[in-house]
């Protein structure tokens, strides 16, 4: 019967189209990769006196700073993502073992923390200790609650997905449901949630460095260079690191957004 109906105005089941944020995320990833490559290659562009950054070409100097900023953001971002995702997974596991109360309390804590200006902890840690490790830890902790909240929401939706019930109806024991269906479907949304930590880490570090309380000067940082140039009143030195920082932040946010926009639509009706 369906064949004689005229062409529908709107199809109920369109072929899967790329998600709206996807192209932006892709370009974000490309920009970030280019920035990282350029920063890594910066020492080759500079002459022998690279270490004396003041004398270098401002663009090259900014690229050199990128090494510090980006690698620190990567370190702290990965750490923050792992902490956040671990938090959410632990909450879900505990819910199964101990009861929903623990889970609810853990996630309420995460939501509350995510609402606080935790980024202020980063300059505090930088000012108090100055050790890069501690700074990374503080940055990661500042980024983790937001990651945990999102990861938990994604996991929650996934746990209620109908295909898990279908798998149980097929007599699969819980560990098999976990291995065959839950984990493969959880990886992508969790990765996407973890991505949220990257822009946060970059922003927090730049903010701390801007105040002069961030990364040690030897490592170099866009925030620090912007702060220094502003204090010296040197627009020529200020523009390159500020622009590169803005570009990197945009790219990191685009990647995170693209990841977040996707998975919920794949799981279907809760």
């Amino acid at each position, binding site marked *: 019967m369906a064949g004689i109906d005229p062409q529908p105005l709107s199809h109920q089941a369109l072929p899967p189209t790329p998600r709206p944020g996807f192209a932006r995320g892709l370009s974000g990833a490309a920009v970030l990769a280019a920035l990282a490559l350029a920063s890594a290659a910066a020492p080759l562009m500079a002459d022998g006196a690279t270490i004396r950054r003041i004398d270098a070409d401002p663009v090259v100097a900014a690229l050199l700073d990128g090494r510090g900023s980006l690698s620190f953001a990567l370190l702290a971002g990965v750490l923050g993502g792992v902490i956040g995702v671990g938090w959410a997974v632990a909450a879900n596991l505990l819910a199964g073992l101990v009861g929903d109360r623990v889970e609810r309390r853990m996630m309420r804590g995460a939501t509350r923390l995510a609402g606080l200006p935790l980024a202020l902890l980063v300059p505090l840690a930088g000012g108090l200790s100055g050790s890069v490790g501690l700074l990374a830890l503080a940055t990661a902790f500042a980024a983790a609650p937001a990651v945990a909240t999102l990861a938990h929401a994604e996991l929650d939706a996934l746990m209620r997905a109908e*295909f898990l019930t279908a798998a149980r109806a097929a007599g699969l024991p819980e560990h098999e449901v976990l291995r065959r269906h839950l984990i493969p*479907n959880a990886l992508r949304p969790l990765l996407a949630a973890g991505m949220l930590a990257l822009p946060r880490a970059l922003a927090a570090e730049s903010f701390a460095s801007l105040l002069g309380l961030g990364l040690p000067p030897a490592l170099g940082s866009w925030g620090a260079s912007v702060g220094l140039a502003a204090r010296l009143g040197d627009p020529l030195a200020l523009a390159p690191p500020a622009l590169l920082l803005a570009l990197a932040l945009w790219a990191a946010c685009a990647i995170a957004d693209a990841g977040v926009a996707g998975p919920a639509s794949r799981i279907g009706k809760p």
Partner: protein
Amino acid sequence: MSDPGLSHHTPGHHTLGHPGLAAAPVDVDALTLMLGDHVLLDRATLRLERGEVLAITGGAGSGKTALLGALAGQPVPGVDVAGTAGVDGRRLLIAQGGRLAPRRPLALQVAEVVGHHLGVDLRAALRRVADGLDRMGVPPAARRFDLPPEQLPDSLRWACLFAMAIAIGPALLLADAPCAGLDPTVRLRLLHRLADWARAEGTALILAGRPEDGLAGPADRALSLRRGRLVPSGPDGEPQRDAEPAPPGHPLEVPGTVRLRAHGVGVSYPLAPAPNGERRQLTVLHAVDLDLRNGETLALLGETGSAKATLVRALLCLPPPTTGLVAWMGRDLTAAATTTSGSDDPDPAGLRRARRDLQPLFPDPAASLDPAMTVGAQFAIVLESLRPDIAADRRAHRIAEALEEAGLRAETAARWPTALTAAEAAHVGLARALLSEPRVLIGDEPAATLSADERAGFLDTLLAARDRRHLSLILATERMEEGLRDAHRGLVLLMGRVVESADAATLRTAPLHPYSRAMLAAARGDRPDLAGDAPSALNQPAGCPLRRRCPKARPFCAQAMPPLEEVAPGHRVACHYWDMPDNGDA
């Protein structure tokens, strides 16, 4: 966003001077609608008298919305209109879904529209809407229209939109998919009220919707929009078909012995404790008993909140019910399912064997497929788990067989679930259920996401599989006629209780419980004899759950829950006064 998708046009916008035809408010001549090169409507001619109610039915994308737009004088963008659509007098279009701003108080939005049309102030507009609500039969206690639409039940929203239309009193009222998504008994009640008003006030009313929405019931005339033509449609809103298989003559196999037995099955959920520390729980399913015989088809009939879906899950032990037991061939499944959730015993007390025999059909087939795996890959897991006797190299063969049995091509195994259409997903769901060669299929509205034609195709495939394999079948549905057409027996569920159980023929012809009668009336497009909306599960009246809506209700109904009693062999009814006449106007 002050105008919630409603518009009016004063006379003469499209009207041509037909002096002799001035009495008819709608006079459409050779109206053609084109969407690009595609003809939505081909030279349609239509005349509607004052007070005439017309239903226009058609599948998704058949051009109903475009037609209504043309009649309302606000053509849908991208659609070219040719011919004349003469409308004499004020016209009002209630757009699909009502199209209200979700966060603003409903009363305000509605009163603004009324005020805009009639040029009266807000107070007068609200008074007129209140009169309209009287005509729609909304009791004053239920009028919480200072709330935004998103916090109101759908039925109230629709009642309020209709009241607004009544307040404005147009010469032509157009409603696109009115009351879509409401329970049949509620939908038909509202539509009949609206139609009554239109007839009484001499308003021409056009209701447009899908064929399965039962719009033809309240209408005087029903047209079906098919392939660009408006053709008269049959009593059920579908175009007249010659080869409709005669339902009563359908040879149904005589059921054998009882295989699946549920006794006192109840489901409750814990709620947050009360302020005084008392434990609370919400019981959604109250001690239901049920037998399913070999080769029997049982229809579970109920609307929103009837807990038919919960019952289906409880029967499958997904999760097991909180009280009562479900036994398959004499073996208690509830015990097996509860003791083993957590342990990894591969075949706990024959549970897996029972899972092989009892297979579910899910209400949203697309969501029941793992998006990260091809159809074939997940089918292989099912086979591995439920049919260890099929060797690994024979699995692909069995999967192809099951897909073909479900009316799909064997290549579907290589496809990804996200690339399937809704209809294909439903058939894939059926194929998965058939994969383990089960004895019983238990489905909760498995075709709810499909259009009328797709649903008919799906049900045909399902019934063919049932007959070929002598399956027992439990199908939950809110469509009473459709559910009973191919069933041996039916259970009518209301608020988690069985209110009537009888063989299908009895339920189709002479149900006794007031709620069953209302559901049957709604399924036939007649006026259901029930007032108001279903109470929320958290706020159930004491005594009979139907008593605030029931035409037979008497004071005693508030005091005691009616038990399910046998009134004739095989026919049980839970009502104190099933044999009494209605008490006038309740």
